[in-house]
């Protein structure tokens, strides 16, 4: 009797330690980023692009990276969405339980696990093959490939949960499969689809390895798809690597900006999900 209780107490203690470690690491990471980064954050940082001598500690800000990241992640998310939604719908509604569906899910699972550096290498290979230079377009396509499996998997999960009775109601009224999918399934899955998109965007904007070779870097804001583009993750990396403490501080500030963008997205997606569930059945 005593031994059982003792064992339970020990493990409960270990459990608390574990949770403490997990939550603690989250708090320390965010805490350190904020502590180091907030002091270095200024209006200047957010609204200016690097001026001459920026990397030696002089004037400027990271607007190039902020806008660049938003352009790149936005474009990549849009591109991935246009492909992901039909794929997720097709796999569940048209391929159903066939071998094609199984194979598709397996293949997309593998793609999900592929490290982002591999996407970067692939993007680089394709770009050199086509004679393209590092550019916004290259970054968009590469990141789109990276986040495609993430989006499809998240959408697939939502679409799978839709009850058969709901679809049956639509078929019973004489709707075709495509009509049912577009008018009923997508409506019902809308909150989940939105979450999938925001999830993928968050992943895409924070990834460095995929844009390292494919998007280039620049102090300016790109004016065309073929211009190189600066991104926040790379901005952090490069600024951290300089020997000047002022510039390193700016790396911390950049980290704050990036983290805030991603965290805000996370919160917004939760709120929007609640709002969009208005029409959803059950």
């Amino acid at each position, binding site marked *: 009797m005593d031994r059982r*209780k003792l*064992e*339970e107490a020990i493990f409960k203690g270990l*459990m*608390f330690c*574990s*949770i403490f470690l*997990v*939550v603690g*690491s*989250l708090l*320390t*990471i965010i805490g*350190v*980023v904020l502590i180091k980064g907030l002091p270095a954050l200024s209006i200047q940082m957010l609204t200016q692009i690097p001026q001459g001598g920026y990397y030696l500690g002089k004037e400027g800000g990271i607007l190039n990276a902020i806008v660049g990241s938003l352009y790149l992640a936005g474009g990549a998310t849009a591109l991935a969405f246009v*492909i*992901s939604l*039909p*794929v997720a*719908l*097709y796999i569940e509604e*048209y391929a159903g339980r066939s071998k094609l569906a199984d194979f*598709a899910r*397996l293949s997309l699972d*593998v*793609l999900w*696990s*592929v*490290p*982002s*550096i*591999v996407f*970067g*290498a*692939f993007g*680089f*290979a394709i770009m*050199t093959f086509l004679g393209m230079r590092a550019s916004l377009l290259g970054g968009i396509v590469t990141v789109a*490939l990276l986040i*495609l499996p993430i989006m499809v998997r998240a959408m697939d999960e939502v679409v799978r949960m839709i009850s058969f009775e709901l679809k049956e109601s639509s078929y019973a009224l004489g709707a*075709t499969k*495509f009509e049912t999918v577009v008018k009923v399934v997508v409506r019902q899955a809308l909150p989940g689809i939105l979450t999938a998109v925001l999830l993928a965007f*968050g992943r895409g*904007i*924070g*990834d*460095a*390895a995929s844009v*390292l070779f494919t998007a280039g870097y620049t102090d300016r804001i790109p004016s065309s798809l073929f211009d190189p583009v600066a991104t926040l*993750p790379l901005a*952090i*990396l490069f600024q*951290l690597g300089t020997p000047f403490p002022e510039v390193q501080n700016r790396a*911390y500030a950049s*980290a704050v900006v990036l*983290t805030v963008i*991603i*965290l805000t*997205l*996370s919160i917004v997606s939760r709120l929007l999900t609640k709002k969009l569930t208005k029409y959803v059945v059950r």
Partner: protein
Amino acid sequence: MNRKLTELIASKLMLIVTVFSVSLVFIIAFALFQRGSRVLMQVSLYDLLFSSAWYPTRGEFGFYPFIMGTLWVTALAMVIAIPICLLSSIYLAEYAPSKVRGIIKPLVDLLAGIPSVVYGLWGVLVLVPFIRNYLAPLVGAKTNGYCILAGGIVLAIMVFPIIISVSEEVFRTVSNELREVSFAVGATKWQTVKHVVMRKAFPGFIAAVILGFSRAFGETMAVLMVVGNVPQVPSSIFDQGYPLPALIANSYGEMMSIPLVDSALMLAALILILVVFLFSVAARIVLLRIERRAM
């Protein structure tokens, strides 16, 4: 009529897009192989995998130290992460009151959203000095802090959210009736968890671990920033290492200037994707076998 035509065109288009997405893995592997095979004409596959000589300017490409670096860091990360994640998810699923759960779960998910450069930043600012000044002297090792241990710890934290969220869900799907049966015989909560819930949820937990492993294996940025990047085969966790993904990332400059480096790195990327592929397939097979036995 018109509707039938719409249905037909729409389903065909969706099929094409699906086929494209499904073949992406193979397209990528193929492209990497195409570019990577050039280096094989100069260096044998055996040398590539097992030689420790990495002198690109001399045309010597040996991946061994990098492969070992990857293995060390990933293994260490899993060793740290598995017990912590198991205990955490058991706590969240079985013991935590729902208010506590409602707070902690979103926090854990938040960890998943933090980009790897930020993890790396934290590693450089906090972890590396900590290892250098406190941890290493404690064990009598000498290091500047940039080592396998730093990489392993950062990686472990990065995979926490994946393993915990999947495991926790798996535990929750174990039906309450099963737990009640155990309680009815007079078992304590912990005994129930240990003998009944965990047994039922085991395949799911393995799946979560594999998922975490895949993520840890290919993680580039965070590890790159803290692991030291010295091409040597590590012999202790306080040694510096140089995982394969980090090598690829760091060698952008060489890729453009030194011949065959780009080919070698493409091959390195191919190795990564092949390992991930094998692991995914093996995981599926293992999962199916365990589930079949559980039935």
